[in-house]
């Protein structure tokens, strides 16, 4: 899906836990999430911690959208 969206010229960032899969499929901008069943907020942690993780990683995704890249890039979190 990410490829078809990017093919139209829309800038897209994929947030995923399985980064190697995202890379193989062909995503160009990637931001890691913390797990598969809860990508952006571990229920075992406090509400505040979950919010911080989510706010932080979505912020990295926004940074990624603003960054020119030459090749497939995983943005550090």
């Amino acid at each position, binding site marked *: 899906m990410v490829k078809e969206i990017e093919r139209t010229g829309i800038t897209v960032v994929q947030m995923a836990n399985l980064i190697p899969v995202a890379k193989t499929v*062909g995503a160009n901008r990637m931001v890691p999430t913390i797990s598969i069943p809860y*990508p952006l907020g571990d229920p075992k942690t406090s509400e505040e911690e979950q919010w911080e993780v989510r706010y932080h990683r979505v912020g990295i995704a926004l940074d990624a959208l603003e960054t020119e890249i030459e090749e497939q890039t995983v943005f550090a979190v």
Partner: protein
Amino acid sequence: MSNKAVVYINQFFGQIGGEEAADHEPEVRDGVAGAAQAIAPNFDGEIVKTVICGDNYMSSNQDKAVAKILGELEDVDFDIFFAGPAFQAGRYGNACGAIGKAVKEEFNVPVVSSMNVENPGVDMFKKHIYIFPGGHSAAKMRDDAKKMAEFGNKLLNEEGPFLAEEEGFYKRGIRHQYFLPDETPAADRAIDMLLKKINGEEYQSELPIPEQDLVEIAPAIQDLSSTKIALVTSGGIVPVENPDKIQSASATRWGKYNIAGQDKLENRASNKYKTIHAGYDPAAADADPNRVVPLDALRKYQEEGRIGEIHDYFYSTVGTGTTEGEAARMGAEIAGELLEANVQAVILTST
């Protein structure tokens, strides 16, 4: 001396549990456990250990999981490593490939697995380990495991080269030097090929170049504060009644849901949003769908002026067992809508 094998399986096939046990840490058991029994009857030797690890644990803590397993296998005497079969299960395929590649590099033993052609693990790891084409689901367990075991026997008992065309595993892109049975020299074969090409006839290259379909990288957004952003997910978040009847696996449908004026996605208990994705434990996503579609965090950035606008709809489908073809079609349909709505940037979340 009889051959010794180690088998890797996930928490489900290790009979530890389903999604609720997907965070299970790796353990190494003596002898045959769980679905390793499917390999045993056709393997000409002994299965000395069975490694069991939760799929989520492997994908979220891969380095740790691999290190632990390699450490425990250090003093184990074995000649071959089997992983799977993993069918069309993406996380399981990734796990089999990751541990298989590491075992091969660390212990220099052959590694054999089996995956359906749609499993992303195939493209990721076919260069590193032998992967046989397998079925969609565990209904094919016996056939897929038999293929793995029989090829394992061959690897341990016969001389190579083992060619993809003859043995049936996915092509690894490794070149072997050998003489064709009919001994036609390369010069003659090249001329034959050239003549066929000139005459417009079919010919088969001896060095096919694998295709990789990468799309052109879209330019960076210059000014996010005047940009319209949309949220898209393959995590299966939908209104609780699932109005578009999106399938829980192998999806062919997608939906778009209005989030105009909403600060966050309300949860299942409030009768608003839930996940229908059958590939992961839904508890966390049902309790707070923003864990999968982070509308709350994106609203905050909108409030702060970091982004201009959030598109009034988010788009959703289910990414488990979904074929690449269907995913591409749905992606193109969604992209068409986004273009029409003047969306300039997308955050796509996957589970």
